[in-house]
Structure formats: structure tokens, C-alpha cells
């Protein structure tokens, strides 16, 4: 990261992960407009989930990015300003439920498989593919849970990881 970017994106100490939920018109080009706001200000998007909203006229974007709170505030304002954006809200951990899912391909042979299956069981994972040398596992839950599983599974030999990125929904009657 260049020095300039550091100034824009904040120093490492106060860099935190922010999840912003953006409700947008479901039109071509909206994703580019939103992504430009982040990119221009030196923010790397860690994960991005876009899916159709309730009636197809709108879409929901859930974007996770690193940065200091001040710059995130500015980015939220700039994103909200886009004509195609209905709203952009950053929820705190307390008022929102956040989940993500991962599919992991892990090496598994006769000697390691039993222990690996136990681990998967503990994480309430699901085995989707079973061969004599590997397993594909599906784990869903909080980002922390996924990270914990991946770190424990590491010693078996992780062959491939695909993550959905975080999605979130506001608790109670409040809309996301």
C-alpha cells in the first residue's frame, strides 16, 4: 500500500472491518458506481454480496471493507448520494445478524478422515462430497466461526476455499 493510500484509508491501528448494507435500484451499472466510491478512496473490498431484493426492482448489497471510521463515514455519505442508492446503513454488531457460508475442500485419507469428520460435526458442517482423498465441507455461521474452523482444518491440508462473503439483516422489526 502506498503512503497516500495509508493516509486515505487510515493507519493500521484504527483500521477496522465495516459491513455496510446498501439497498439499490436493480439496474445495470449500479455495482460499478458503488465500487468506484470505495476504490477511489483506497478501500479494498473484502467481500461483496449482491442479490435481488424482495420484488426484483431493488437489490441488496452487503459490502465488507477495512478502514478507519471517519473514512467509512465519508464513503457511506458518497454511496448514499448515488441516485440509484436507496440507503446505505452500517449496523453495529448488536442490532444485526450476520452470517456467511464457506465451501472447503480438505485432504482426507483413511488415517485422518475420522478426526476430520468429528471436527466437521462439532461445527455443524455438512459433507457435500466424499472421495478417498478429499472431502468438501459446507460450514455456515459467523465469520469468526468460519475462521475458527478453517484454522483447525488447516493441518489436514486445505485444498481450496470458497466463501460467500457476509450477509446481514437487522434484528426485530427494523429494516436492513
Amino acid at each position, binding site marked *: 500500500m502506498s503512503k497516500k493510500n495509508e493516509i486515505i484509508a487510515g493507519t493500521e491501528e484504527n483500521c477496522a472491518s465495516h459491513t455496510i448494507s446498501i439497498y439499490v435500484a436493480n439496474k445495470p451499472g449500479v455495482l460499478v458506481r458503488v465500487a468506484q466510491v470505495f476504490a477511489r478512496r483506497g478501500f479494498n473490498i473484502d467481500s461483496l454480496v449482491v442479490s435481488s431484493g424482495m420484488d426484483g426492482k431493488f437489490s441488496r448489497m452487503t459490502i465488507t471493507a477495512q478502514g478507519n471510521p471517519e473514512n467509512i463515514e465519508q464513503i457511506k455519505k458518497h454511496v448514499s448520494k448515488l441516485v*440509484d442508492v436507496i440507503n446505505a446503513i452500517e449496523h453495529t454488531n448488536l442490532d444485526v445478524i450476520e452470517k456467511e457460508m464457506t465451501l472447503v475442500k480438505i485432504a482426507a485419507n483413511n488415517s485422518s478422515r475420522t478426526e476430520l469428520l468429528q471436527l466437521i460435526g462439532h461445527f455443524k458442517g455438512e459433507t457435500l462430497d466424499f472421495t478417498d482423498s478429499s472431502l468438501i465441507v459446507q460450514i455456515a455461521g459467523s465469520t469468526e466461526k468460519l475462521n475458527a474452523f478453517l484454522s483447525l482444518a488447516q493441518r489436514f491440508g486445505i485444498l481450496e476455499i470458497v466463501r460467500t462473503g457476509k450477509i446481514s439483516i437487522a434484528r426485530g422489526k427494523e429494516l436492513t
Partner: protein
Amino acid sequence: MPKIPKTGAEALIRCLEKEGVEYIFGYPGGSVIPIFDVLYDSTIKLVLTRHEQGASHMADGYARACGKPGVVLVTSGPGATNTITGVFNAHMDSVPMIVLTGQTTQSGLGKDAFQEADIFDISMPVVKHSYLVRDPNDFPRIVREAFHIALTGRPGPVLIDIPKDVASGDFTGTMNAEMDIPGYKIPNELDNDEILKIAGHLNRSQRPLLLVGHGAIIARATVEIKSLAEKLQAPVANTMLGKGGFPETHPLSLGMIGMHGTAYANIALTKCDLIMSFGSRWDDRINGDNARFAPGAIKIHIDIDPAEIGKIVKPDAMIIGDCRQAADELLKHINTLNTRTWLRELNIIRKKNPLRYKKQGGLKVQHIVDELYDLTKGQAVICTDVGQHQMWTSQYYLIDEPDTWISSGGAGTMGFGFPAAIGAKIARPTKTVCVISGDGGFQMTMMELATAKNLNLPLKIIIMDNKYLGMVRQWQDLFFDNRLSGVTLDGNPDFIKLAESYGIKGFRLKRSADVKKILSLALAYNDGPCVIHADVVREENVYPMIPAGKSAEHLMTERPKRKLEKPTGST
């Protein structure tokens, strides 16, 4: 044209007529022939430019001079990309503009068809909003939305990209389509608690300073701000684009603030205990060093764009909303302050540090502008290009009325001034419109001499020819040991002969003794455009100056004796 449009192009032009469009600044090409064909029968007048950049600047100048959006119509590919500088310029300065670009047929999109440019994506960072029209029946809705978006809130350019088959396709829809922009929000309710908080700050202030930016003019807030300043007895500084937001001849006016602003406005900034901005962005021309900006002052920010609040300066109090409404509300809650000491102090600073130049020692830009101001009684519409002449014009041509100062602020676009003046003269035909340009910037868009001549617009085109890119030369002189690199404009044309080749009247100005005489002749000449070629001294520098990246405390009112460090600011 038939009453009920039958094609997309007919619907489009009919919609533009309904929006009250009188002029389109444009240049044709293959993909927009169906639209030009409809224009043939329309009441809208086409201004055929010589370059699409010129069209976009004319639309910009037109919009700034009369407040209506300027409309541009160009073809696909290079036609569209040539407008980008103008669109960017309008975006930076919040100018309403509608840019209609032709596009290849929908079946050719993404296939590198002839003259296909993905202008929708290319323009994205420099537009307020944009459209790619996919269905001829969408024109009524899109045009209505585009004008609404361009004009309201913080104005800006809206681009509409039109594939050729959509323009020539059948129109079967309704002309009374509703807008459908649920994400577009214009702040319209002022926060009363903040109003009271700001009034409290104002009523406690002993050394207030009001800062008037372009937003004040856009919001038509000049009367309210004047009442506010007079009631408070607070001095007022304006940004460059804020010229006209508060009368610069008013006793409370300190004139322009910033890098080349007046010494007294900048010194006031360092000494005030409160600064309240109406529609300025606190940008780096007035705030080179944010940590040292108006140290010790309470900062109040009024802006209609929520994204401007806290972007540069963290305000102590703020209003997101219309400047005029805000000023009006504040008037109800403020008292007249005892600022006599503060005003007296500023007056002494003003007397000690006036704007000054020497009429001796060759022909000076300052002298020409000063004389032009006197001869036109400050009543002309002034359009400038970018550079030294722009700063001198800002300093010496005081502006009292909104919409009479047209200059490229945020973008600093060389080549803007002359085409913008064509647009301004079309918008304000009864006004004297003068262009102050440099030899560098003028040559970037001088092909529009043909446009000015065709329309026979009595523009006064003053070219300040020092055969240098003067502002860059000034920086190289002051900060780079006078190692002049890439700033000498050898081979400039004889601008008089150039003008004559277009059938345009030319006046040559070489001696300072002739300034009044030549300008009077040019101002009296109203048979068409005229060019005044001013052969000015080559190595004059603009003062006062605050080096880029520095606070107002580093103001220089004359050439410094010591060697200066290279500036830390970007430009």
C-alpha cells in the same frame, strides 16, 4: 413535427421542448443522425460547434449565466469522449447539464462496433447520474428525471447514452411518464436545533467571518446572506466561484479568499473566532493545510450536499440543506454583534496590504482588467480561462451580481473561458460579455471562433498573450530555481490575423498608454465578436500567494527575498 411522436428521437426532442430547452450545443455524427433529423423540424435552435469539448463548455457557460441546464448533443465514440473534459468541469463546479450522446445499435454494444465508446462507464465518476436508454418508450421518464436530477439539490451533469436503434425505434408509450427515482433525496428540512446552536455561536462571536461559495449563488441566497451579514455586521469573504454571492463592492466584503485571494481576507481567516461557510467546499484553494485552517475558530458549515459535511473540515455545527432557507432561518435568531473593533482591525490590514500593481514597466494584465472594470462599470458578464489572468481578473474585476462571473473552479480547465462565453452570451444577449483568456488556454478551443462568428455574437475576447504558460512559469520561478520547463509558447499565431481570417474584428494592444482607448473601441464595437490581442509583459507574477499545501499564515504579498521550498500541496 407530428403531435404524437412516432420514434424515440421524436419523443426525445419533444421532451426537451417540454422542458423548455431553447438551445442545443452539438456536433453530429453517424449514430445521432436520426436525432438531428428530428431537430430539423424543432423549435430548439442548434448551435453547431467546431469541437465537442466546445459544445460542453458552451452548455456550461449557458447554464451558469441563466440557471437553466445546458444541453449537449454529440455522436458516439470520439464525439462522446470529447465532451468528457466539459462534463468533468461541470461536475466539479456543480453546473446543471444534460449530455446526450449517440451510441452504436444495441446489437453492437460490447462488440467494438465502429465509433463505439462505453461512455456510460467512462463518464461515471464525473456525472451526477447517467442513463443508457434501452427502450424508446423510456425517453419521457428519463428526460424528466435527468432534468430534475441535473437542476435540483447540488446540481450537476447528467449523461444520456442513446443507441441508434433506440433513437430510430418505434415510440408507443406515453409522454406523461412519472419519475421513478426513489433513491434520489434532496435535503429539505432544516434541523431547528442546529439553527439555534449556530445562532448561539454567532451571537457569542466577536470576530465572525462569513464565507460565501458557489452554493450560495446556486441557492439564490444572495439577498438573505447580505441581510444576515449586515445584521451581524460580519465581514464576508468569497471563494473564486462565490464571486457574485455577496457584492464585492460592499463595505463588509473582503473580496476573494484563498491561494491568490486578498491579503485581508486571508488574514481575517487566521484571526477570526468563527467562520461560517455558505455553500463552499473548504477546498484546497482556500484551505491548503487543514490542521492550520482558521485555527481557534468555531467552524460552521451549510451545504445541501451531506457528503460535503465533514469531508475536509470537521464542523462544530452544520446545516444540511438550502443556503437561502438556512440564512433566512438564522436571521430570526441572531443579534447585531459588536464587531466594530474587528472591522477596524481588518480595515487597517486592508490599508496596509491593498491589491497593487504598477502601471509602469510594460503592459500588465492587472491594468487591462482594472480598466475594463471601470469602463464596464463592473456590469459585464466576465468569463475567464485558467491561469494567471484568471487570478488577476478575480482580484481586479469585482463582481456584485450573481451569474455574472463564469470561471472554471474545481477543474481548472484551460480552454473553458472562450466557449463558455459563447454560451453565456446566448443566455444573456443583452449583457456585455467579455472573455479574459490567456494565449495558452485560448489556443485549446480557439476553433470556436467560427461558432462565435456564425452567430455573430458581440463578444469581447481579450487574449492576454505573454507567450508563456504563466502560472506554471511562476511556480518554476518561485519554487524550482526558475528552471523553465515546457512553459514557453513559441510559435503563437498573430491572433489578430487569426481573427481576421474568420472575418472577426481584431484590436491590437501593445502599450499601457493605449489600454483605455483600445478597450473603449472594442466595447463600442457591436457588429460581431472582436478579439483584443494584448501583448502583455512576460514575467509578471500573481500576488498575494499562499504556496500550495500551506495555511493562510504563509501568505506572501510580494516576491519573497528568501528561496522557497517546493510546495507540499498537489497543485
